[in-house]
């Protein structure tokens, strides 16, 4: 039960102690507490199987929580779902479209199912077709569209009834760079007027970093951290990151030698890559290379970059997000 002191109406979306277990041994989502404010873009970041989609499905009322509650605009989803439906827009992870229907017919169908009046619906559908560059394909059956166009339509369907809470479940998965750029532009546009709350699940660090006001990192159903991306990156240390890719996984002796000779404090590995973080890291680069070349490993590649959310995840879990 939510705490009496909570003012749930001040949040677009809130969860209290939300848990979901598909079996008795483990929880897909474990005691999740979220408080997302109106106009906020909230990124839910985590590897595959972290519990992101399960969370979204519970937020939408499609999945019953094992325990805990979900509130949309202060109203609990289990009791007020029918009333809240018109305020929620969803872009599912998979493109869910009817292959035989055209682009226009899709928008018309979903709009009608949300009770959007005919004239408004026609205008909104036209606007969305233009915004998502679907004009040329408006009368084509969806089965003839490319994957990227289908994803755009998938997102347009989430917006056709003008919802004020939009949930985007892995919206850029499988998109080509051009479509992804268009999608990010659209999401940024939606967030610009601060009228809508956007919840975004992704396993793309870049996407979460660029689009989100706040990011929650989820792993094994638990929320590890939740803050603004800049704060999260800052929390794991100052300076840049030097990535050194080797031909094989380095031994503990090699790593210890680097640590001692180059006085490196923040060092970690991910598979056959060594990540070294610190201020003025380039000054220590020759020493590190010397240590590595004196051992039997061969350097394949090196890269210098600033901190990312992936580094945050790596620090928190000890493994790369891609290993998830």
């Amino acid at each position, binding site marked *: 039960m939510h705490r009496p002191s909570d003012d749930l109406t001040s949040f677009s979306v809130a969860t209290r102690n939300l848990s979901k277990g598909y079996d008795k041994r483990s929880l897909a989502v474990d005691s999740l507490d979220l408080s997302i404010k109106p106009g906020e873009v909230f990124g839910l970041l985590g590897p595959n199987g972290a519990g992101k989609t399960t969370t979204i*499905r519970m937020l*939408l*009322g*499609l*999945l*019953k929580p094992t325990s805990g509650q979900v509130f949309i605009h202060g109203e609990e989803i*289990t009791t007020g779902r*029918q009333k809240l*439906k*018109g305020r*929620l827009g*969803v872009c*599912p992870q*998979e493109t*869910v479209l*009817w292959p*035989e*229907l055209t682009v226009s*017919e899709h928008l*018309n*169908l*979903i709009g*009608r*199912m*949300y*009770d959007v009046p005919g004239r408004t619906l026609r205008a909104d559908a036209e606007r969305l077709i233009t915004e998502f560059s679907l004009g040329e394909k408006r009368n084509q*059956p969806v089965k003839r569209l490319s994957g990227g166009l289908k994803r755009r339509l998938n997102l347009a*369907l989430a917006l056709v009834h003008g919802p004020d809470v939009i949930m985007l479940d892995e919206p850029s998965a499988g998109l080509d760079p051009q479509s992804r750029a268009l999608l990010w532009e659209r999401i940024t546009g939606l967030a610009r007027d601060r009228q809508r709350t956007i919840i975004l699940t992704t396993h793309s660090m870049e996407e979460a970093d660029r689009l989100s006001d706040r990011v929650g990192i989820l792993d094994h159903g638990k929320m590890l951290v939740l803050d603004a991306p800049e704060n999260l990156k800052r929390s794991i240390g100052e300076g840049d990151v030097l990535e050194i890719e080797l031909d094989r996984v380095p031994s503990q002796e090699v790593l210890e030698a680097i640590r001692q000779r180059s006085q490196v404090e923040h060092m970690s590995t991910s598979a056959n890559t060594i990540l070294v973080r610190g201020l003025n890291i380039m000054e220590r680069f020759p020493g590190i290379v010397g240590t590595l070349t004196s051992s039997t490993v061969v350097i394949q590649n090196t890269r210098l970059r600033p901190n990312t959310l992936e580094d945050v995840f790596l620090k928190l879990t000890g493994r790369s997000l891609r290993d998830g």
Partner: protein
Amino acid sequence: MRFLPLSFTVAKRMSRDLFTLFFAILFPAFFVFIFSVAFGKTGPLRNQRLDLAVVNGDEGLRVNFGNGPETLRLGAILVDVLESLSYSPSSGWIRPDSSSSGFMSLDSLRLSAQKPESAVFSVVDTLKESMALEKVSSGDFDAALIIPPGFTRAAMAMAMEDAMGEIFVGAMDKFSGESPRPDGPAGSPSGSTGAGAPSGGGAGPSAGAGAGGGAGFGAAAGSDTKAGAFGRKPTTSDIQKMIDDVSQRLEKSEKRSGVSLDSLSLPSRKAPPVALTLAGDPSNLGFSLTSGVIKNVLDEFLKRVSRRSLEEAKEFVPLDLGPARKELVSLENSSVAVETRTVFDYQVPGIIVFALLMIVSLVSVTLMLDLTQGHLERLKLTRMSALDYFLGNTLPWVLLSVLQLVLLFGAAKLLGYHNMGSMFAGVGLVILGSLSSISLALILASLAKNEKQASAIATMIAVPLSFLSGAFFPVRDVVIVKDFFGQPLGLTGLSPWTHTTKALVGVLTFGKGFSEVQWHVMMQIGLTILLFLAGIVLFSRRRLSAQR
């Protein structure tokens, strides 16, 4: 009204999916073509005759009804009737011929408008029973009819019982001074046409009718009925007075006609029961059809014999049979329709029901695809209610069923289907039948794990149901409730499609009105409502509510 855009969407998807459209609409019509080639009149093909071997062992009966002595051989006449049984849809198939000289001439039982090329049976008279049975075993014949030696004797005994019973009833009414009642005694000829005649021979009917004559007079008349005629239970004195009255009438008749009753040689009202045997392979459709036709022919034949007997008896005992009594014994309106139909005519309504049951598979797979492809989940996110979803999916499928019926019916007519009834009534029944099928599909889509499983289960259920509904051949039912709102309810009667089939056959093939098929229609409606409610509850709980 959110179901309307959903209905349009489902309809559009159907119309753009030619594969589904073909199976849903054209395949049943194609099925009709196949059946018409096999069983109907199409092109150079004629009605397929049923091959019947007859072993006529009837010894006949020596009688004298006042026209001189003659040997009556009802077995031979019955064989002739079977040989000349035609498909003529407009004429009656047994025509009494009052101009014939003999009591039971061949003409009096012959069919009118005979057309040998359209005969139902190809009858071969064989002498030996073993040979006939061998031919049936080898598939050369659909059935063998064995007429026992005492057939004429037993049939005439039944007829005399009926006639004497009628004489007695007339005398009773006259004696008691009451006008004849519209509802006659149980022992009247109309009651003597026991359906058990083919298997039980004369035994069944004569037992029912026979109470009317001889020693059984008192019991025959039925104590309740006669007590009603007298206003009290008749005494021995009453019965003696009645017998005297009948004797006086007979004496008057003798004087008027100049024929002495002593010179007549009337058939006895007592005869041992006989059984006609129809042998055949129950798995052979031809045997089932032969059995049905012969059962009706024999029933009608025995009615005719009784009627002729009564007409002859009236010559000697001029009973004043009032109009109500005449109607009671009349056989003019007796309905025996099998003789005017082809096998194909029976099967067209069956194919309609088969097509309706095919929809179960298509609808359940469509609903499962909605589920597995995420369409249902997307729709669940909208304001769509459960009822919107059901109606949205039901309407297009019902319309498709009607379209299917129109095409199927048109194809059947082109291929020689003789329909007698209203197409609009057929449409109504098809709408009900399609609702039953959609309801079953809802149940399957609630329980199946994926579309393959739904399709497999639907086929496993729909095909046996189509056969059990009697869509293709008569099914022997097991009665579970003897009187369910006025009719016996069998095991197959628990399926709404059984009632769809029977109502469709009644309406389309036999031209029956609503009142004649209303029991089946009401059963169909009731069972469909039950199925629909079960489907809605299951689907709502398992597919439309939040997942656990």
